[in-house]
Structures are given as structure tokens and as C-alpha cells.
């Protein structure tokens, strides 16, 4: 409960900080709209040449793009600011000390206390794209499909958080490594249905670095209804990712508080 209140307060603080720069606000708004239109244009161009991309129709792909926008926006808003802050400021400049001294879980403070509320614009845009895709699809998803879709989204979000924390943890051992850029790049691969990737890469994206969870699995769940064979591994995978993240974080903190000056 306290964590939720802290999270809300942190979000409010960030929102206030953002609002102090009004021009930047407009810039970012325009830029995220342009970015969205660019990816919609891509879909449009592809489907002007073909009817099916690795088995995906145009309407399905719009839903996919929208879903990708949803999770991207959550990632940009709540995970990236912390992830990019951490190695440089947290470890190298020792700002993690401030969090260590505060009476709340350090992992929470370090991984969720910063946010860029402006990125949530993408969330709204994403919902609009999904609605557009669904209206083209011609068939509305069943309530169970929607529930299952939300479940997969939560699982995707947890995996995203877990992978982010795991990458950040590397900074405890190698402060110079800044992997968030690679994470961001790999993330872009989820923008397309993972079925288009060739076999070795596709397997990696499904099992090792589960980016299929970001857009492909939620979209198929929403459109084709829930399948236990997909849902169960997603939930289990999310749980494993979180446990791994927490474990690594603890080990990293032990190292941090044990050896620096």
C-alpha cells in the first residue's frame, strides 16, 4: 500500500517536473504522433504489396502495432528512465546511496521511482490503433479473450521489468556496460509479428529473450481467444523473470555494499 502511494507520488513528481517545460511537451507529443504514423505507414506499404505477412492480415497487424505501442509506452514511461539512470548515476556516481538510506525497498526505489509521464500519450494512441484494427478485423473479441489479453499484457510488462532489472544489475559487476541501448534495439524487433523471423532468431525471441510476449502473444490471444498452452507458460515465464531479477538485484547489492568506498 505504501509502495503504491510512493509510486503515485513519484509519478506525480515526474509529471510536475515535465510540465515545467511546456515547449518540450509539445515537441514530444508531435514526435510520438509522427512515430506512430510512420509505423502505420509501414503496415500500409507492406499490405499494398501483399495480403498476408507470414500469415498475418492487415487488420491483425494493426492490432499488433497498437499492442506494441501499449507496452512500449509503459516501458518508456516507467522502466527506461530508471534503467538508463542506473549504471551512470546510480553506480558510477554513487547516487544509489540515497535510495539505500531510505526506508523503502531499494529495488522499488531504484527501478520504479522515476518516470516520464509524457510517454503515456503513446498508450492512448496505441488504444486508438487497436480499435482501428479491430474495426477492420470485423469481429469483436469475446470478454474472456479480452481478460486473457490483459493477463498476457501484465505478463509482458513483468517480463519487461524483469529483463530491465537484470540488465541494470550487470552494472554492479561492470559499471561501464550500458546495455539499455541494446535492450531498446532488440525491443524494436517485437514491432513485427515474430513469425517473420527465421528459425534460430525466432526461437531466441520466444524462449530466451521473450519479446514475443510483448506484442505477438497478446495480439493472437485477443484475436483468436485464449489458449492454455500459451497463457500458462507466459505467466510462469513472467514469474521466473521477476524472481531472477529480484535474486540478481540482491546479489548485486551485496556486492555494492561490500566493496566500494
Amino acid at each position, binding site marked *: 500500500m505504501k509502495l503504491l502511494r510512493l509510486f503515485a507520488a513519484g509519478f506525480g513528481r515526474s509529471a510536475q517536473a515535465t510540465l515545467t517545460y511546456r515547449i518540450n511537451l509539445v515537441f514530444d507529443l508531435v514526435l510520438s504522433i509522427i512515430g506512430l504514423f510512420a509505423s502505420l505507414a509501414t503496415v500500409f506499404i507492406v499490405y499494398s504489396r501483399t495480403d498476408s505477412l507470414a500469415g498475418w492480415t492487415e487488420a491483425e497487424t494493426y492490432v499488433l502495432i497498437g499492442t506494441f505501442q501499449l507496452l512500449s509506452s509503459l516501458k518508456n514511461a516507467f522502466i527506461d528512465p530508471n534503467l538508463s539512470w542506473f549504471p551512470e548515476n546510480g553506480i558510477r556516481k554513487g547516487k544509489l546511496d540515497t535510495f539505500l538510506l531510505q526506508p*523503502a525497498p531499494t529495488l522499488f526505489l531504484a527501478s520504479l521511482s522515476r518516470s516520464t509521464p509524457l510517454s503515456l500519450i503513446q498508450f492512448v494512441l496505441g488504444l486508438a490503433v487497436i480499435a482501428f484494427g479491430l474495426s477492420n478485423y470485423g469481429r469483436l473479441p469475446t470478454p474472456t479473450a479480452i481478460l486473457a489479453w490483459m493477463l498476457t499484457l501484465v505478463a509482458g510488462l513483468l517480463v519487461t521489468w524483469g529483463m530491465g532489472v537484470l540488465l541494470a544489475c550487470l552494472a554492479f559487476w561492470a559499471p561501464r556496460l550500458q546495455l539499455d541501448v541494446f535492450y531498446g534495439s532488440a525491443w524494436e524487433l517485437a514491432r513485427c509479428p515474430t513469425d517473420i523471423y527465421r528459425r534460430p532468431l525466432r526461437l531466441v525471441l520466444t524462449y530466451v529473450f521473450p519479446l514475443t510476449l510483448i506484442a505477438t502473444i497478446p495480439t493472437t490471444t485477443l484475436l483468436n481467444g485464449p489458449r492454455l498452452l500459451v497463457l500458462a507458460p507466459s505467466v510462469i515465464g513472467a514469474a521466473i523473470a521477476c524472481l531472477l531479477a529480484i535474486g540478481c538485484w540482491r546479489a548485486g547489492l551485496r556486492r555494492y555494499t561490500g566493496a566500494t568506498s
Partner: protein
Amino acid sequence: MTYRAPIRGSGWKETLSSVFNRQYREVPAVQHASFALAPGEVVGFIGPNGAGKTTTMKILSGLLHATSGQVQVLGYSPWQRRSEFLRQIAFIRGSQPVGGSQELTVLDTLQYQRLLYEVPPAEYRRNLDELTELLDLKELLQRQLRALSLGEKMRAGLALSLLYRPAVMFLDEPTLGLDVTGATTMRRFVAEYAEQTAATVLLTSHYMVDVASLCPRLVLIDKGQVQYDGKLDELAAKLSPYKLLRLTAPNADEERLRRAGEVLEASDGTWVLRVPRDAVARTTAELLTELEVADLSVEEAPLEVVIDRAYREGVG
């Protein structure tokens, strides 16, 4: 060693002895450092650069986990960083007075702090009013952190830390870079806070004024070991076997004064003599009877000189 919690739970006692190997150099940062603080004590923690002061403070506040030895603060093991423990301590560093987002106003940050440290609303308002008054924060509350000057940041930093009434304060060079007014405000405030709340304070500083004006007791650490632990004036007596005799005697004979002690200064009939501590009483009596003395005072050697000697030659 056992420790019994005092009334108000604000005391702490700790034994500490640890061997620390930094990651890259094989230099032990803190070794065999043992000392204990009574509740409500204000202790100066001094030593030359690299003596292990900050490391010790980090161990005491839970930022570092000592490789060996025992540390107890308020009855807790600091490295476990329990919420109840963290809520009762404050670690203020002059080098980074306020962390967190610099875009926010001081008031926003204070409100976040209230949530974080679970300060009840009534207490929050009372403390805030008091701090605003004492630290002269009224003008600062609505301003963004990044727009504050260093002195203002330090005041804001103090307010942020004291909002939750910590029982133990670690002050690491709190007057670093502050101007005379800022440093004085800081010192006066810490003294007042310690007196009012009976908080325990451990303070490091390279400015002896800070230590001399705030701390009756001194712990001197060097090369990771405690070199001296006791009263400030006793250290002075130990290190400086001389006192300074300042006298105004317009008609005095210089030859006579030279016999009394080493002449350090001489101008316009005012003399400063260095006299062995145990000979001060006798010399003073003699001079007063033999010479026509207009004014006479006995002074301790300046603290800076004493401490400098302690750093260079050790405590003997």
C-alpha cells in the same frame, strides 16, 4: 558487548572493528576502530583525508557492510537496512546535500519525504513550520532544487533529513563550500537540534571551528584506526605542552621576557610568549610582580595547530 535501550530509544552504542579491502587497492580502509557513543552525544569525528571517516560513516549508516567486526546502531545491525532503522537515521553529506529530481520544488520534495518516512500529517505540519522558521526556508519552499545556491541546498537538505526527526545524525562535512554565514547557520542549527531532541550526532569536518563549537568529544581516526577518543581540551593539553601568554607591558625588558618563555610576537608593548604548560602559573605570578603589566591572558594554542600536529606526528 550488550546494549540496553535508553528512554526514547535514541541512544546507540557500537563496537566496530573491521578490515576493509577496497576493490582495487590493497589498502585497509578501517581497521580495529572501536568506539561507542552515548545517546544525545555530539561527537566530532576527525582525521586527515583518506583516514577512513567516510567509510566508517557508510558502515554505520548501512551503506557498506563491514567484512568483519560488530556494528550496532540503535540496537540494529545497519547493513540489514531495516525500515525502522532507516527511519531513525539521517546521513547528510556536504558534497551532495539533496538527491532526487532537481526539477521539483523544495515543498514537493518535502511532501514526498513525508510519504517515504511515514511522518503523521500533524507532526509533518508542526515539524515543517519549525524547520521553516529555524532554517529560514519560507523563500525557498516554492523554488526548484536546481535553482538553489549551495547554501540554500544545504538548508533544504537539512530540512529534508530532519523532517522525520532522526535520532541519529551522520554529518559528513556539512559545511563544505559554505560561506561564513551559511556555515554559522548550519552549526547553530545542528547544536539546537541536538539539544532539543537529544539526538546523537557524529560529525566529520575539516574545519576545526565546526568541531570546536559543536563537539565536546572528539574521535580522531587515522589510517583506519582510532588514535584518540576523549575530550577536546584534553587532546589539546596532550598535544600541546605549551600555552600562550599574551601580555601588554609597555616598559618591559625584552631580556627578562626571553627568560620566561619563547617570544612569538612582539609589537607596541604587547608580547606573546610560549610557556610550558606546567610553568604557566609560576611564570604568570613572577611577571605580574616584577613588571608593570597592563593586561595579561593565557591562551591555548590554536586548534588547527594542535590537530595538524596530531595528523602529522600522531597522538602520543
